[in-house]
Every structure is written in structure tokens, then in C-alpha cells.
């Protein structure tokens, strides 16, 4: 059986030559993300904003969104969003945070249930009070920063600080792009989105570390090699692995996006996007950026480890 190979062996794709373009592209895209974020804002869910979310399912036929909106407007609860959710009898209602404390928020559910009575099935109800929502947002930001810091330390410890910085720049790039994706697609940004971002951080670093690992290995082996040539070689050698792993992960995620249900769609869709971006950044950002950080990689103090990792075990066992 002929095996499926996406790339021929010994590819010599000049990634380093393209680095100007990839940096330019990523730079512009990042700026656009910020601009879009500033002009359009995020579609923040109730987790971070407070308020009420209800998913209802009509018992008789497709839902009449206009009618539902009308009924809700009559309750005088302020801004109300009504949207179809997956199926045509499934409706998602979002109601803004009410004036007043926690009790005012929970009262909303009672009012809505009184308005619709038994004509619908209440599939899901979420109420987040003003105090909790602030904390959730804070914890989310702290969590992402803490993860980045810890990973930076780990990579620094295992490699060199240049690698650590490069990995974090590439990962921050992914985080910015993913947040931009949320803003552009107006996907709901909630607690699970933070989880998605952390997962993307993990995946992207995983990818970056694999390429870095190869770069480190080659630097030990070919000390005189020009860094540009070496980086190109390392990226090319790990290319099949990078794309194959990205593909299997994307296959699994695509199954989740398509079949995993509406409830976690913003979670799974953003991860799908993030894995693509993470793969791109490992190849086009994380590796090429090493050339700016320090051409000689601080003299490579790990060079003396060569003996442990050398070829003496390469003889047939």
C-alpha cells in the first residue's frame, strides 16, 4: 500500500526567505485584530457581563422569534436578544444585567417563565450576578497570563531564554489572533472561550517546542552552519510531523464543531481556528524569529550535553 504523504521527503521550502512576508502579514493582522476589537467589541457572554441566558424549545413547531421578542419586550427587562439556536424550534434568549443586586437577576427567570408558561421547554437557564461576572473575567485573564508565564519559565529552563521569548511571542500572536477571531465572527466570548484560548496556548507551544527541539539538536550537530540555513532545515524536517499532527487534531475538532452540538460550538470553533493559527505561527513566526533574538543563541551553553545525546547508541543494538 502506498502511504499518504502530504509533502515529499527532503522538502527545501525557503521558509526563512518568506519571513519578511509572514511577519508583515502577522503584524498587520494583529493590528487589524486590535482595531476590530476596538470598533466592534467582543460579543461577551453573561459569564463576564452578568445577566441571564435562557435556552427554550417550543413545543409546537418552529419558534416564532418575532413573537417571542415581543413577549419579552413587554416584560420591560431592558435589552433582550433573541436568536435561533441550532434547530428552528430552539431559541436562545439573552437578557442584559438588571439594575440592582443579585436578587434582581434571578427574578428575571421567574418573570420569563411566567410569560411563556408551559408552552415551551426550558432547556437551560444561566444567571450570573454582577459580582461573580467581574471575578470570572479577572480569573480568566490571570489564568492566561499565569499559563504563559509558567510555560516561559519551563522553556527557558529546558532551552535558552531566546527560545523562551520566541515561544511566548508566537503564542501571544496566537492569542491575539484568536481574540480577533472572536471579535470578527462575533462568537460569544465566555468562560469556555478562556478554556479554548488556554488549550490553543498549549497546542501552539507543543508545536513550537517540537520545532525548537529540532533546531537545538541541529545546532549541536552542525555548529558552523549558517543560522538561516539551519532554521530552514529544521522547519522542513519537522514539516510532515507538524502538518500531520495538525491534521489529526483538526479532524477531531471538525467532528466536534459539526456534531458536538450548539452548546459548545463557540468553544470548538475557536479551537479549530486556534490550531490552524498555532500551526502557522510555529512555522512562520516562532522559528524565524529566533534569527532576531540572537544569531548565536548565546553561545549555546547546552553544547556540552552532546556527549549524552551523541551517536554512540546509534550502532545496531
Amino acid at each position, binding site marked *: 500500500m502506498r502511504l499518504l504523504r502530504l509533502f515529499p521527503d527532503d522538502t527545501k521550502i525557503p521558509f526563512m526567505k518568506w519571513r519578511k512576508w509572514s511577519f508583515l502579514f502577522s503584524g498587520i493582522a494583529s493590528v487589524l485584530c486590535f482595531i476590530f476589537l476596538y470598533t466592534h467589541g467582543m460579543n461577551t457572554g453573561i459569564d463576564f457581563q452578568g445577566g441571564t441566558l435562557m435556552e427554550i424549545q417550543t413545543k409546537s413547531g418552529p419558534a416564532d422569534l418575532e413573537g417571542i421578542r415581543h413577549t419579552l419586550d413587554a416584560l420591560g427587562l431592558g435589552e433582550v436578544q433573541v436568536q435561533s439556536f441550532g434547530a428552528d424550534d430552539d431559541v436562545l434568549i439573552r437578557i442584559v444585567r438588571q439594575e440592582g443586586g443579585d436578587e434582581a437577576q434571578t427574578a428575571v427567570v421567574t418573570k420569563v417563565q411566567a410569560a411563556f408558561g408551559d408552552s415551551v421547554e426550558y432547556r437551560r437557564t444561566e444567571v450570573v450576578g454582577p459580582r461573580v461576572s467581574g471575578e470570572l473575567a479577572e480569573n480568566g485573564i490571570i489564568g492566561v497570563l499565569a499559563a504563559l508565564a*509558567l510555560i516561559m519559565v519551563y522553556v527557558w529552563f529546558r532551552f535558552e531564554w531566546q527560545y523562551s521569548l520566541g515561544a511566548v511571542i508566537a503564542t501571544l500572536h496566537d492569542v491575539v489572533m484568536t481574540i480577533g477571531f472572536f471579535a470578527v465572527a462575533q462568537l460569544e466570548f465566555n468562560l469556555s472561550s478562556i478554556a479554548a484560548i488556554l488549550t490553543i496556548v498549549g497546542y501552539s507551544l507543543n508545536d513550537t517546542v517540537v520545532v525548537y527541539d529540532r533546531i537545538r539538536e541541529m545546532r549541536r550537530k552542525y555548529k558552523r552552519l549558517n543560522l538561516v540555513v539551519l532554521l530552514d532545515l529544521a522547519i522542513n524536517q519537522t514539516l510532515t510531523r507538524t502538518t500531520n499532527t495538525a491534521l489529526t487534531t483538526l479532524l477531531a475538532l471538525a467532528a466536534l464543531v459539526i456534531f458536538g452540538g450548539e452548546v459548545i460550538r463557540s468553544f470548538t470553533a475557536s479551537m479549530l481556528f486556534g490550531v490552524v493559527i498555532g500551526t502557522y505561527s510555529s512555522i512562520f513566526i516562532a522559528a524565524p524569529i529566533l534569527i532576531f533574538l540572537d544569531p548565536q543563541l548565546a553561545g549555546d551553553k547546552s553544547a556540552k550535553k552532546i556527549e549524552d545525546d551523541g551517536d554512540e547508541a546509534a550502532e545496531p543494538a
Partner: protein
Amino acid sequence: MLYFSRWKVTAILLTIFVSLVVLVPNYLTSDQIKNYWPSWLPGRQVVLGLDLQGGVYLLYQVDVNDYKQKRLKALEGDIRQAMRDEPRIGYTGLGIQGDLVQLKIRDADKVDEAAKRLRNLLNPLSTGALGGAAVSEFQLEQGSDGLMRLGFSQAGLDKRLGTVVQQSIEVIRRRVDQMGAVEPSIQRQGSDRILVEAPGEKDPERLKNIIGRTAQMTFHLVDLNVSPDEAAKGNLPPGEILLKQKEPGGMPMVVDETPLMTGEDLTDAQTSFQSQTNEPVVSFRLSTSGARKFAQVTTDNVGRLFAIVLDDEIISAPRINEPITQGSGQISGHFTVESANDLAVLLRAGALPAKLAVAEERTVGPGLGADSIAAGERAALIGTVAVVIFMLAAYGLFGIFANVALVVNLILIMAIITILQATLTLPGIAGIVLTMGMAVDSNVLIYERIREEQRLGRSPVSAIDAGFRRAFGTILDANITTLIAAIVLFQMGSGPVKGFAVTHVIGIVTTMFTAITFTRLVVATWVRYRRPSVVPL
């Protein structure tokens, strides 16, 4: 790298076998487990999260301000009493100012005596005898001109709040236990919050009604000499308050502020039916001291009304026709059987020491839960099959090895979730599917490495050996970075998101295990029996 000692092989196979055994109860009903499954084997099933089996997640916040006001009010009363003791101490301006109770002692000579009496009210919470600092609930601040201020000490307030949360949890547990049906988990969160999770609960409104009610029951004498209209204008005699009736349309009533009795004097409460009207009522039984008090009051006040008050609302106000000495009575108040039942539960379980407010509420109906399980299973199946097909196409025979490892990985993940009784949520299922996608990464790393080594001219055995050895360091580094992100997520997450972090973390660990043990074992066995002249990669 290709040699395995016999005990290692045994250990790997045993791990997989044990995992399979652990999984079996998931496919049995609870009856089957009870009757046929040997009790010495693990009989646990996977715990499904609220989003999968439906249920309620309620985060309550102790209303600290309400609690403070209550305590300050009590302190104000105590101060008034203390100043009245002989010899009396004259004062002016006693009242609550924000977080303080303040008063001014009239006579400069008596300031020291007053301060002494006030110090007795500071309510020591720990003596400091065991080395810790002495902590009192309140602290006294003396100003000039006989000004006295009593406010909370921070340490004292924290300590009291701790107790309040603890007591609230006990009360909630008693209430919920008596409701029957659900088995909620009730736990403290942070300094002033209580988390109640009730999987499978179908009536969240009733649960909320039972948990969130303060249920402070008091009996007060009614003063019919003051008209409610006058009272509403603020013309209340000192020591009396105006309370509204629970029944819509009922006239408010003026009652003594100091209750005759409180819910603490009750020993039992049950639903029963009034003999004449067959209306549901709540009958209660009083403690011995409560019964004595009640007998005394009813003897002294025959003919007057007394109000039965629940959380500052009058439920009913019967007339005392004759002294009640047997220590029991009935509360009627237009109850349905269910509302009478709920009140009885509340009275038996006791009052909450402070008001609780819902800070966060998430409810999932059983319909959505079932749909989510179906969606999760479908996505998991299709995702896994897609990965399996790709691996087969990309790596042929070695793809089969990877796929067998993938199945083993899945078995291990599910077994660990079952053993640890970690909660499986919909994002958790997503975590497993994602792991399926990422797990083959280690195989990909190893295989690509073997390919490279072989193309460098190594013999199959040497190439495989070097492939595993060299890929191992990469696998470790790559997975540890992913693991760090996942553990951070586990630390900060709650509910469904935490469920994702759990399966993701478990998945990373099992992936590393299967890559460096199981896959290697399979490949080594294949090499030993086939003696390949070339690795088909």
C-alpha cells in the same frame, strides 16, 4: 529501547486489563451492579456533570451587609440594656451609624464605668490562650466628650462569617436532606460563598425556594391599639414595628418588636390537616423551656392576637382563646399541601444565620442533557474514526499500531475518570476527542523520526531504536508545556470548563504513557517476530 523485561510487559498488560474491568460497571444498571457484580471489584460509574444529566448549579453569597446590620441591631439593644442596669448611666444619641453603633455618655464621671460595661459586650470569640491573638467580634473606640463607638473588628468579622457559612451549610444540608429525592453536593467557596450542585434535580424553583429562605420564625404579640395607617405614617410607639401579611390583600399589623418566641424553641414541625376544614396546616412541638415560656405568655394575654411571622411576613395571627400549656400548636395560613410541607421542612431544619442571595445560577433541563450526551458521543465516534482512517492512510501497518494505542488510550482515560470519580461534562467529552486528535502526535513524532533515521541508512532495528529514543525527549517537552496550560485551566476553572481541563490533563498523561510503553511494546513485539528488513514507513 526495544527490550522489555517480562515484568514490564506484565505490568503494561495488567494496567490495560484492570482499566477494562474498571469500565465494566458503566455498562451495567445499578441493580445489576448490586446483585451480580462482585463487591470486591470497583463498582463505580462515571459521574456525569450537570450539563449532561440535567440539574442545578447554585452559587449563594452570604449577604454580609444584612448580617452586619442584624448584629449591630442586637448590639444596640444590648447597649441599651447595659446602660439601664443599676446604677443607670445617662446617654444620648444611641444609634447605628454605618458599620458602627455610637452613643454619648452624658455624665463625664461615668464614662469609665460605661466603657467597662461596653467592654463586656465586645463578645470575645477566642481568648488567645493557645498562643493566637485574642479576637473579639467588636471593638470599642472612645472619643472625647464621652463619645463611644463600637464597630466590628476585621478578625472578629472574618471569624463570625466563617461560622455563619458553616452553619448555613448545615442548615441547607438538613433542609435538602428532608426534601428527599436529590443528592446535592454542598460546599463552601471562598470566604463567604456556598456552592450547591444538584444533579438530576427537576424542580430548580422549589429547590431555590427551600434553600434561599432565611426561615426565621418568630411569634409576636399584636397591638390592636395602633392603627396600621397611623403606623405607616411613622407614628409607632417605641419597641413596636409594622409588619405586612403574607396573604395578598391582608392588612398590615403592628406588633411588639421583641418576639415572644423564635424558631429555636421548636423541636418538631409536621404537616397535618385541620380537623374541621381539612385544610393543610403545620403542627409544631415546643421544647420544654419554650413550652413553659409559651404557657406563661398565653396565660397572661388571653384574648389578644399573636402573630406568627416568617421572615418578616405575618403568616397568620390567631387569637389566644385560652392558655396553651401542652407545648404544641398549629399554624394555619392558606397552605397547599406542598407549601405546608415546605414550611415544615424549613422549621425542622432551622433558620439560616444570615440572608443568602443567588450570585450565579445554572440550570440544565434533562432534555438538553440527553441531547448533549448524544452529540458528544457522535462527535467522539466520528472524530476518532476520522483520526483512525488518517493514521491508517499515512502510516499503514504502523498506523494500525497507533490506532490500537489510541483505543488503549481511550480505555485508560475513561478508566481514570471512573476511578477518580471526576465529573464528565460536555466540554470534558470535547477534551477527550481533542486528546484523540493530539494523542497520535507522539506516534507521528516517533514514526517520522524512525523514517528519517532509516533514510540516513540505519538498519530497521537501529532506526526504530533511535526513533523512539530521540522522539522521547521531544514528546516529553511538548507534552509538559501542554500540561502546564491544562493544569492552569484546571486550577481556575469551575463546572463544565473544569470538566474539560480534567479530561485534557488525564488525556495528556495517558498519551505519554501509551506512547512510551504500549506503542513501544507493540513495535518491539512486531520487530521480534517479523525481523523486518525494512521498516514500512
